[in-house]
């Protein structure tokens, strides 16, 4: 993730951010969404709004609950899967290749 932030300037390569998304077509990507949601799945399609079709998706929702007795914050994650998912672009915060260490 941090590596991705470092710009790698290619000579004579005028790049738009969306061109980088294109490189991830047919690759697994990581998508951060509004509402503490994260998706991991294979990118099959995207458009300029970052609407996307993802395949073999795993959704992770992070819920912070406060334990009433101890008043401690309990972080709970909910995981869902979908074989094929359309994601509306207005909820997308960032799109990134998954960290290579995991792969």
């Amino acid at each position: 993730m941090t590596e991705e932030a470092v710009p790698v300037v290619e000579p004579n390569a005028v790049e738009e951010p969306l061109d980088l998304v294109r490189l991830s077509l047919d690759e697994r990507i990581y998508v951060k969404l509004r509402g503490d949601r994260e998706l991991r799945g294979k990118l099959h399609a995207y458009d300029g709004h970052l609407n996307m079709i993802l395949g073999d998706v795993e959704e992770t929702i992070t819920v912070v609950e406060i334990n009433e007795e101890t008043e401690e914050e309990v972080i709970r994650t909910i995981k869902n899967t979908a074989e094929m998912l359309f994601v509306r672009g207005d909820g997308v915060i960032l799109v990134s290749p998954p960290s290579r260490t995991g792969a």
Partner: protein
Amino acid sequence: MLFYSFFKTLIGQQVTVELKNDLAITGILVSVDQFLNIKLDDIHVVEEQKYPHMMAVKNCFIRGSVVRYVKLPASAVDTALLQDAARREAQQPTVPAPR
């Protein structure tokens, strides 16, 4: 137009539309427009106990902007073709070349 084109091929398929308010509606995709507004038929809410107020509704129109996800049947998607379509969409010249 990519996703409009895409959703047109899914008409007649059963899809599950998850809205931004967490309501998830399963139904047959009847139609879609270029705003990705969606019409569903034979609908039922996924968590019926939680959202009983939709019980009597048999079909609905969903404004595209309130959609978070649409879960699709993978069998109805040609992923290779879809990727090509996405590439074409991405590489379309900003100004269409005159023919």
